[in-house]
């Protein structure tokens, strides 16, 4: 049952793979044709060699004219076969590399339109490994599987035909003994499978320990736990040694054992062939030809058994990528979508309900009306869901019920682009792209002049440290900001927003990594920036939010209180408790 379902999955995946290959049909057909040519040439050469040998009998019994003709033939065929093989390789490469390029392109395009819910809910490392490692594995499997499986099958069939054409009896010998080799190989593979499972499980256990301990080496040392940790490590390491020895040894038996069976085939051919040659049914040349076939015939069998696992693995990888590619994208924009223009800063939330998990209710029936230029502060302990509001405002997530309106338009009816363009956002997790400082700053306003950029950087107090970098604004920073400190990165993010100055602002713990003195200086710039702009501010420092027009107090995802600073203090609720605790001893 399970087996069947797995098979069905595999055929489905295979169909999808074939769809990708379809684009390169011509190359595929060419490649198949070349493979046939290569195999035939490969098989013909031993026959020709056999003929030559039959004309080299004994002193005085060598027919040079015939031999010359045959040798010339071998030469030409070799040349053609080599050419065919090279072209086939090139075709196969072309198909493989183009297909994986197509797949990667699609996967990436999907990443750009995936709902954030998906991105937040999956480990980024795992998604990256699907796009990179899985696709690579798939390519390897495809390339190897494709060329080896096809030529392997052809070779087996071709050899059979050629052998039958020469002599039926010896062919029977070969056909009867060969399955033994397959049997031995699959027997060993089955027996070693569990050993490999054990090895990789033990390896996984060890990797987990290594990860944990090396990542937190500093804590390990602070508590002088080095010896204990090493002891745990050695225990696993010992088990790994045993498992690894078993798996390696038993799996390495395949080669010698099949080689032994091959030598049996070889001997069988030699024996029967010699007797037939004695009776003059077979020439010595034909016997040599058979012997060389006997050597070749079993090889594709061994290869195919390897290829099958490789192909299965490749299909499993392909399935993981297709899962990503077929993932439901964010809701597409409706046909008659409007564009937000002339945003003044009217934001209205009406009966908004939202939760990340259906079972765990978060925001229920939340109403809020913000007028142009108002400041909304969101406070509460860490992890209380402050960021959720921002996710909804920017439409990173869609509300479950109710609506959010900007300038009277439901944000689901306007383009994402125009909505997001209306907000300037500084998040707690500072994200910078790999590139120069300049590229990062002008992200929101690519047409900005040098002067505008520097003015923005100065306002964000980033100019002085940028100036001190080796190449100033053209300094290349690595992935995720590389060598910059958390505070410096945050200053850059602030400068980025100060440059494009959209009509509304979202500041999510925008100054959390900046020391309070610098922060105070930036606050002035912020204040100027917020003038006349609707802004949403998340902060845990209460001092920075007292001046807000509306304060939302959140706890455990719920909005507990809502009002101005004075009103909330007067309520003597959670807010006043929070506020007073900062003065407590």
């Amino acid at each position, binding site marked *: 049952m399970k087996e069947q379902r797995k098979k069905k999955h595999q055929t489905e995946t295979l169909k999808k793979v074939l769809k990708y290959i379809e684009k390169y049909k011509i190359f595929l057909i060419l490649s198949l044709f070349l493979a046939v040519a290569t195999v035939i040439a490969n098989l013909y050469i031993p026959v020709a060699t056999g003929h*030559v*040998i039959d004309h*080299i009998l004994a002193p005085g019994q060598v027919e*040079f004219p015939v031999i010359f003709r045959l*040798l010339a033939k071998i030469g030409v065929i*070799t040349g053609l*076969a080599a050419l065919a093989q*090279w072209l086939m*390789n090139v075709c196969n*490469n072309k198909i493989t590399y183009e297909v994986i390029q197509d797949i*990667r392109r699609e996967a990436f395009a999907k*990443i*750009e339109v995936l709902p*954030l819910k998906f991105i937040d809910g999956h480990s*980024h490392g795992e998604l990256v490994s699907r796009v*990179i490692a899985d696709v*690579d594995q798939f390519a390897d499997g495809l390339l190897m599987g494709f060329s080896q499986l096809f030529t392997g099958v052809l070779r087996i069939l071709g050899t059979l035909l050629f052998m039958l054409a020469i002599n039926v009896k010896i062919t029977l010998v070969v056909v009867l003994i060969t399955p033994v080799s397959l049997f031995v190989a699959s027997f060993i593979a089955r027996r070693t499978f569990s050993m490999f499972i054990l090895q990789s499980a033990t390896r996984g256990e*060890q990797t987990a320990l*290594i990860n944990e301990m*090396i990542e*937190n*080496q500093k804590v390990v*040392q*602070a508590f*002088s736990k*080095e010896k204990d940790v090493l002891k745990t*490590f*050695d225990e696993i390491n010992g088990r790994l*040694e045993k498992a690894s*020895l078993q798996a390696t*040894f038993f799996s*390495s038996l395949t*080669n*010698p054992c099949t080689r*032994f069976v091959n*030598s049996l085939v070889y*001997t069988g051919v030699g024996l029967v062939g010699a007797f037939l*040659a004695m009776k003059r049914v077979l020439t010595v040349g034909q*016997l040599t030809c058979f*012997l*060389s076939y006997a050597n070749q015939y079993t090889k594709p069998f061994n290869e195919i058994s390897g290829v099958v696992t490789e192909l299965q693995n490749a299909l499993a990888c392909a399935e993981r990528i297709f899962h990503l590619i077929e993932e439901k994208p964010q809701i597409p924009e409706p046909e008659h979508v409007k564009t937000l223009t002339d945003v003044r800063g009217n934001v209205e939330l009406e009966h908004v309900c939202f939760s990340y998990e259906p079972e765990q209710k978060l925001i229920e029936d939340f109403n809020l009306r913000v007028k142009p230029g108002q400041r909304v502060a969101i406070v509460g*302990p860490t992890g209380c869901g402050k960021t959720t509001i921002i996710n909804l405002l*920017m439409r990173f997530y869609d509300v479950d019920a109710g609506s959010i309106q900007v300038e009277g338009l439901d944000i689901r009816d306007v383009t*994402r*682009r125009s909505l*997001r363009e209306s907000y300037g*956002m500084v998040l707690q997790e500072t994200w910078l*792209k790999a590139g120069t400082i300049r590229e990062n700053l002008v992200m929101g306003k690519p047409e900005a002049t040098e002067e505008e950029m520097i003015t923005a950087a100065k306002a964000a107090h980033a100019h002085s440290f940028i100036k001190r970098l080796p190449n100033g604004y053209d300094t290349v920073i690595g992935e995720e900001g590389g060598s910059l*400190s958390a*505070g410096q990165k945050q200053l850059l993010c602030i400068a980025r927003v100060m440059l494009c100055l959209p009509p509304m602002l979202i500041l999510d713990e925008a100054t959390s990594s900046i*020391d309070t*003195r*610098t922060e*105070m200086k930036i606050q002035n710039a912020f204040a100027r920036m917020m003038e006349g702009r609707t802004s949403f501010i998340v902060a845990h*420092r209460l*001092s920075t939010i007292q001046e807000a027009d509306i304060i939302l107090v959140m706890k455990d995802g719920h909005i507990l209180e809502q009002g101005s600073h004075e009103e909330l203090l007067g309520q003597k609720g959670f807010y006043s408790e929070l506020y007073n*605790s*900062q*003065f407590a*001893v």
Partner: protein
Amino acid sequence: MKKLLVYLKDYKKESVLAPLFKMLEASFELIVPLVVTAIIDVGIADRNSGYILKMCLVMVALGLIGLVCSVTAQYFAAKAAAGFGTRVRHQLFAHIQTFSFTEIDQAGTSTLITRMTSDINQVQSGVNMVLRLFLRSPFIVFGSMIMAFTIDVKAALIFVVAIPLLSLVVFGVMAVSIPLYRKVQERLDKVLGITRENLTGARVIRAFHKEEEEKARFEEGLESLTSMQNHVGRISAFMNPVTFVIINGATIFLLYTGAVQVDTGVLTQGEVVALVNYMSQILVELIKLADLIVTITKAVACGNRVESVLEIQSSMPADGAGKRTGSERCETKAPAVQFSHVGLTYRGAGGESLSDIDFSAERGETIGIIGGTGSGKTSLVHLIPRFYDVTRGEVLINGRNVKEYSLEELRQKVGIVMQRAVLFKGTIRENLCWGNRDASEEELYQTLEIAQGKEVVEGKEGGLDAFVEQGGKNFSGGQKQRLTIARALARKPEILILDDSASALDYATDARLRRAIREMEGSPTVFIVSQRTSSIQHADKILVLEDGEMAGIGTHQQLLETCKVYREIYESQYKKQ
């Protein structure tokens, strides 16, 4: 790579026997064509069926002996490789444990993890392959040639020409393509980087609606990758066809020479067959050898990386300096912690991160440390348990230089709670017992109460025995912080360091925590690092740091009057009060 091979020394026997048995197997394989020759020249020519039967039995026997030899070789190779891998892993892990913070910072944890795992695996399988094949393949290649010489010198000369030609092609293609494959890898890394960036930065990219630009950037990377892959592919696609041509060309010459030699009576028909057989054996082995060399290059590269980690010497050998124990010089009147004109320059850094830090903390005092981001607060407290060595001045604990203590003795005195709260996989109890192996249940609850973590434990099913997932994923930031504080308290330290470790706690809990620590028995000397003035304003002494220098020291009131930096920090947090 050479130095790693030392770890094979316990497997000398296996490392010699494995290739030896492989060579034995190969030599039996080399005899087979001779037996076939005998069958043709004697058995068939003389119509001697008894002889043919006998020769076939010889072939089966050769196959059997080959099998036994080969299995033996595989076993020795697997044993040596598995043992080697295990020893290297142990050695490397143990070595990393001796690293001081300086070396950990320098090497980077993700690098160390890759070295420990995939790199060593590669080396291990490399060793296995080398032991199995490295002697076998050249042996068959040259063995075939030598066998050819025993048959006929003139024909053997064709081997002498063909083998170098073949090697030239096989190794030439490899020499060209291996560096190109490295380039492919580089371009793949770039594609990987863009993918990761678009996942981690999804919010920002969408906020600035850069999706289309990112797609274009990805496409560019992708295309350069594909074109490089096709380029390398075209080159390595040459290998098989060209070797095929050489081998068949050589066979043609062989057949011609053979024909001439048979015609003049120097060779028999069977001997020509044997020569052809030897020629085809060479091709198979050369291709195996090429595969092997790819594995070896990879393994050597990995091995060198592993070795480079092993070569990093700890700047702070664990059993090195001042093993002097006992407390003869431990004056009870000396301050608990004293910094005397301390300077710290991180390795590879341009300037000092701390300069001329000079202060002392009496037993039981609470010292607050405050300053902006990057002002050196964490660096300062990390000098106390000697995570880094000072580059100027000295740090004294109980009047003794920290370098005179053994690391274990020193760190036993200090309980530190780091900025990033880390829990380990296991139970809560196991985590707390990191601080003190023999802590009783009662003691654990006591420390939990001080750390404000009792409710955390009570809220979890199983209490102290509740399971902690790797990295403490099933705990919130605040919960983790409280547990790490409890862990540090469990060892009843003389010196307690809280490095911004209450940041995830709300003000009220933070305040309760500080009060509980002050009232703790044994009254440790406490260092509190914080950005909040509220966390440190009641400390006995407050140290104000700016750009690695002391901008002021004193009590809250004193500093408000005398220290401009402190006043500014304070005012920035309490603007309108």
